[in-house]
């Protein structure tokens, strides 16, 4: 699809997601909880973790004193049901290590990890297997498809390992392949597919078991840019339709901004900042985050709410005259859309809240200055 349509669908998706999140405000059962998780690699890892906690040591200090590498340092965050939680960081920031703790492919040195209310460090081997095959699906950067199995067999693997009937496996696999756009590729083999198609198979496989949680470890990083954008779009559509809780790992800040409901920025094993894309873009917590923010265009991220002037600051005379001709927009409209509206009228834009009450004004000066700032 062409660029403007894609932008529109992304925008629409974001609006819908915001609404959905706000609906859940009251009753939040957290899907994934990480509390003070540490991961240290090396023979004296437990000792090193204790010392690092006690004395607030840096990564280099731990390496010098104990010869151990700190993978994760004091990571804590929650993931809410249905949201796409992006974890973003450079190579070596610990993001891949972190995501592998959620399904316990890696054991933490210390800390608590709760998945769907269960402490996964406490459960037995069989329960962990059941958790993995029923509730968690994973997509890998290099796809990791089995070369000797057909596409359909690859997709139905989790179901076969779970013990489902052959008919169910076949049916479910076909359904998943349909949902990622590979209806006719069931009999092909991985080596016959392109990178983008292979990753679609990976996504289909992760969805086959109908898990509650999707873990995606840099799924699009190994693909070329055009395919990447396409798959990002498809992923957005899928995640709205399926309402799965997703933890999405990426090193690309603009990808995180585009896909995430909330983002966690990581550096050297620590979580530096957690927030909505808007929060992070408007209030980067330190110069490290600021560096990422500065490199992207923000007009699709800043909403009317963050740039509007409070309507109470305008004199009552303003309420006469042009007010009824002014276009009204919800407060989560992005600057992108505001520019379109402003270019069609001379009147200032009025911003409304959920109850359709007028709360703020955006005139041309405010709009232009905010574009300048972005």
């Amino acid at each position: 699809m062409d660029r403007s349509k894609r932008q529109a669908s992304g925008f629409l998706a974001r609006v819908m997601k915001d609404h959905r999140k706000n609906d859940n405000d009251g009753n939040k059962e957290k899907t994934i909880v990480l509390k003070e998780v540490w991961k240290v690699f090396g023979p004296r890892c437990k000792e090193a973790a204790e010392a690092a906690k006690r004395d607030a040591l840096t990564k280099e200090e731990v390496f010098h004193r104990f010869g151990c590498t700190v993978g994760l340092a004091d990571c804590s965050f929650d993931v809410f049901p249905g949201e796409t939680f992006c974890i973003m960081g450079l190579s070596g920031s610990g993001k891949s290590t972190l995501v592998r703790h959620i399904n316990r492919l890696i054991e933490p040195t210390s800390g608590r990890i709760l998945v769907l209310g269960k402490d996964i460090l406490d459960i037995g081997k069989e329960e962990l297997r059941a958790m993995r095959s029923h509730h968690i699906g994973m997509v890998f950067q290099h796809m990791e498809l089995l070369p000797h199995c057909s596409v359909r067999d690859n997709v139905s693997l989790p179901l076969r390992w779970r013990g489902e009937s052959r008919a169910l496996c076949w049916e479910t696999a076909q359904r998943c392949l349909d949902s990622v756009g590979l209806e006719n590729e069931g009999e092909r083999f991985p080596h016959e597919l392109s990178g983008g198609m292979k990753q679609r198979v990976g996504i289909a496989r992760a969805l086959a078991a109908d898990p509650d949680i999707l873990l995606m470890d840099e799924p699009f990083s190994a693909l070329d840019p055009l395919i990447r954008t396409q798959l990002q779009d498809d992923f957005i559509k899928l995640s709205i339709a399926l309402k799965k809780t997703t933890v999405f790992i990426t090193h690309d800040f603009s990808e995180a901004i585009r896909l995430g409901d909330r983002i966690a920025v990581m550096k050297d094993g620590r979580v530096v900042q957690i927030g909505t894309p808007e929060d992070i873009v408007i209030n980067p917590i330190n110069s490290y985050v600021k560096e990422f923010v500065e490199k992207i265009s923000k007009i699709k991220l800043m909403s009317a709410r963050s740039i509007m002037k409070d309507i109470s600051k305008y004199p009552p005379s303003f309420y006469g005259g042009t007010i009824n001709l002014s276009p009204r927009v919800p407060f989560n409209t992005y600057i992108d859309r505001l520019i379109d509206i402003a270019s069609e009228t001379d009147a200032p834009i009025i911003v409304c809240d959920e109850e359709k009450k007028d709360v703020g004004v955006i005139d041309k000066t405010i709009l232009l200055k905010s574009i300048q700032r972005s």
Partner: protein
Amino acid sequence: MDQSKDFHSNHSNHSKKLLEQVGTFVRRNETYYKKEFSKIQKSVDFPFSWNTAAALLGPFWNASRGLWGSFWCFLLLELFVAVQMGRVLWHESETTNQTLFILIFLLLLTIKIWEGFFANILYEKRYLSWLIDPDRVSSGQKMSRAALGGLFFLCLYPMTIFRFAVTNPDEILSRWTHGFLGDKIPITLPPFKREFFSVLAKWADGVFEWLAVNWNGLFEGITAAIISVLGGLEAILIQTPWPVTLFLILILAFQLAGRRVALFTGGCLIYLLLMGLWEMSMMTVALIGTGSALCILIGIPIGVALGRNSKANALAGPILDFMQTMPAFVYLIPIIAFFGTGKPPGVLATIIFAIPPIIRLTALGIRNVPGPTKEAARAFGCSEWQLLKDVEIPLAMPSIMTGVNQTILMSLSMVVIASLIGAEGLGALILESLQYAAKGQGLLAGLAILFCAMTIDRITQGPYRK
């Protein structure tokens, strides 16, 4: 133009910098070495840099500077010259040969010239490595090193020259020490004869006899197992009427491996029929088949276990090496002691020889399954058995099939040895050819074995290669 001038001036600055630390490195004669190293670095072909001290002092010049590689080279070259000199000068019976003397002297001169011209080149190389790692690489000249060189010299030269110079070094030595250590000091031949050897061999005999009696049950059990498989194969291959067997083999080849292999098999079988080697070949095939089947049955599980456990793999390595490199004749002896002669011991010898490839290659295949693929499988909740069945073994298949192929071929190479201890078949025919030097017979029998080998291999690889 300007740029190239800059480049060249940078170049000479760079080489000046490179030679800055020569003084620290050589400690003495800094100016001389600076000049020589600079000459070497600037040269394109062989740099003719002569060092008189190196030529005169020879190996000891190298030793004192820690150039041990060249020290040993020159020490041994000069030893050769010294030995020749010794032979000419001190040999009691031969007359002194003037020409020989001059030749030896010329040889010494050549070596000395070599030493003189190579010294600085080697020294300069050492200087460059010292620049990179001044703490680890040796520098300067130390008398202690020269003394060590002297010690090596004393250890090697006197005894060697003496040994080559006189006719009866052992006796002369003993005369000098007044028979202190006996009437012959053994420097020509080693002192120990086979005294300890015989004692140990007798003791080992005793152990074998004890084992043969007390573990008889185990050995009979193994023999029974082998006989059952062997018997089954023989019944199919030998006792069934030959047209039926021929037909079955062709069908098997066609089904498993396709038309080409079936045609090839047909050709081989016709050869065996025409040469009248059918029955013998079938006996050999039964033997090989049993050996290979048992190898594969036992070997693949062991290989899988070793592939997954790296400690066990390290332990098993030497044992497998032992099984492969020991001459088969060596383990034929205990096999005869425990199992007697005939076909089962032949099969057993074949198994011992042919099992290492399949174990090793299976272990290798399992080890080479990519970690991320296994991680992905675990992330989808597979059990250890499902991991093995659906991921590890299929991905290790190329390696495993290579192992099967190698095992079959190595089993076939054991036929002659197996026939030594009573196994019948083509091996016995070849043995006969060897004993009677019947060349033509040996060649034809050998071809028959080759055809059997290739046929079995193509058929068993068939389903995989298709």
